[in-house]
């Protein structure tokens, strides 16, 4: 369990955040994403969690360890918190080679904490060829990988990642993301991931905390936050789209399609590397959805999901946002006000949601648990979960 309550005044800026997560029922302890625009207090929050910044008041509790509690006068110094921190700018020690950078944290690690094997980390992050090099001779992506390894090797109870991809170009980002996914799925270290790119959140997070101007405006799992009205304010209607998760039921490799069960319906997605049984996460962009008030016929669209309107709200620029329950999961669609009036959309109305399989391309992500279970699972729960898989 992670519990964070922080209050901090810094000039005109006031940070006032609180969030907590229970242990998710998954093979990995999960990733909390702190998401929000620049200057909303994300970095200040992780700084305070790490102990590098002292909040005016609050609580930081990870598992059964209380690291900060202003009421009880507890303030464990940063060097004894065992919280790994991957900074935006890597912050590798320039006078040490990669091996010594990695050993720096490892040499100071305590006996307690998750067992992290040096060779496994080097292997997972592909650091082998870099060990003898100096940080100056590494690319941006390589530096972040070393920083990740260094933070993990101090056997942290929590890993903080402060926009580790922000200083990288698009190609490097794409290169680093799979490493992060692997770490998330194979190590039993919970992570707090700071980002202002919703796509990173989609790929990595199990729990999302949406921040705005120093406050938490929405919180929950990715599917819930993806349809929160507050998210629209943060990312705009164009990027808005409900996220659904589901297991692949069947794969038609000849057609290159996979069938995904979503609520009471089915979704066809283009899938080259997917196999039945894998869990995936799909984002259906609000502006890609087509609504029909009767069952459609004679269309090329592969996906038709039946549902009920649960909310209808005006959006900017003469459009409406329609929230539809499709038997559990919810979708969000953007339609023009005139279409909304013509179809007589209102709460409680039954309708059919159409989405082209092609428009889902690029919006399918592996869901948590899609990778093999942790090799080093220490806790009993983790072992039990492993045997289930």
């Amino acid at each position: 369990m992670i519990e964070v309550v922080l209050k901090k005044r810094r000039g005109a800026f006031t940070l006032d955040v609180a969030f907590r997560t229970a242990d998710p029922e998954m093979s990995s302890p999960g990733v909390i994403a702190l998401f929000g625009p620049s200057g909303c207090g994300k970095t200040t929050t992780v700084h305070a969690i790490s102990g590098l910044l002292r909040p005016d008041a609050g609580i930081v509790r990870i598992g059964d360890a209380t690291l900060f509690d202003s009421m009880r006068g507890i303030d464990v110094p940063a060097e004894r918190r065992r919280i790994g921190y991957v900074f935006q700018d890597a912050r590798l020690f320039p006078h040490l080679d990669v091996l010594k950078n990695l050993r720096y944290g490892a040499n100071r690690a305590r006996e307690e904490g998750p067992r992290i094997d040096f060779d496994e980390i080097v292997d997972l992050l592909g650091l082998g060829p870099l060990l003898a090099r100096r940080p100056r001779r590494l690319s941006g992506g390589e530096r972040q990988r070393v920083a990740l390894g260094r933070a993990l090797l101090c056997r942290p109870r929590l890993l903080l990642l402060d926009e580790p991809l922000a200083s990288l170009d698009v190609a490097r980002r794409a290169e680093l993301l799979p490493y992060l996914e692997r770490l998330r799925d194979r190590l039993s270290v919970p992570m707090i991931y700071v980002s202002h790119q919703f796509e990173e959140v989609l790929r990595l997070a199990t729990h999302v905390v949406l921040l705005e101007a120093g406050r938490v405006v929405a919180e929950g799992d990715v599917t819930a936050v993806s349809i929160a009205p507050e998210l629209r304010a943060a990312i705009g209607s164009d990027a808005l789209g409900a996220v659904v998760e589901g297991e692949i039921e069947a794969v038609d490799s000849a057609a290159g399609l996979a069938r995904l069960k979503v609520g009471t319906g089915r979704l066809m997605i283009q899938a080259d590397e997917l196999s039945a049984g894998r869990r995936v996460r799909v984002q259906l962009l609000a502006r890609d959805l087509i609504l029909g008030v009767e069952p459609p016929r004679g269309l090329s669209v592969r996906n038709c999901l039946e549902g009920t309107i649960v909310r209808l709200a005006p959006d900017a620029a003469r459009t409406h946002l329609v929230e539809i329950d499709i038997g559990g999961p919810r979708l969000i669609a953007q339609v023009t006000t005139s279409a909304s009036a013509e179809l007589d959309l209102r709460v409680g109305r039954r309708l059919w949601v159409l989405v082209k399989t092609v428009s889902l391309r690029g919006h399918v992500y592996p869901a948590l648990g899609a990778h093999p279970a942790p090799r080093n699972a220490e806790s009993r729960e983790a072992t039990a979960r492993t045997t289930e898989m």
Partner: protein
Amino acid sequence: MLLSPAEWEAFRLSLAIALRSVAMSLPLAVAIAWLLARRRFPGRTLFDAFVHLPLVLPPVAVGYVLLLLFGIHGPLGAWLDRSFGVRLAFTTDGAALATAVMSFPLMVRAMRLSLESVDPGLEEAARTLGAGPLDRFATVTLPLMMPGVLAGLVTAFAAGLGEFGAVITFASNIPGETRTLPLALYTALQTPNGDAEAARLAAVSFALGLAGLAISELLARRLWRRMAEPA
């Protein structure tokens, strides 16, 4: 080179006094450089000015203040004499103290400049990796500010070789005790037919200064290379 025994004595004394002054101010200089570069405290500006005072004061004035404080009848001098039997005024130790005080700001300045160029973010990173205050200073801050430490040491040593005013005021001009190269040179100039001796002493000072500068340049270059290149 053909130096008289007295001239050798002055040469040796200069080296010994400069070395001792550098050794005694090194730890304090590192501490004060760190304080000035990394800490914010009330009176910091005033403290900064005080540390730099010897740079702008006439050396004779510094020697005089030392004499007032550390003379046999001065408050600190009397206490040292009574408690430890240590006398500083008119001794080699005193000459080293006067030299240390004069070259102290040079040392602090060099160290502080290089400390200010060390990214505090690296110290934060070391902290999150489990390093306590002394640990991170020794393993991150100090190695990264090493070029400045060495530059400070060499500059202070070179300047210490030539310290005149403060030494002659506080420690006097005693052959074999406090008569360093510049003092011997001055004495030679005051002596009839001392021109040849003065020339020799000037040449020695010149050579020492050049050697000091060359060594400091070499050390700095080596350090930078070590930091930039793979091991």
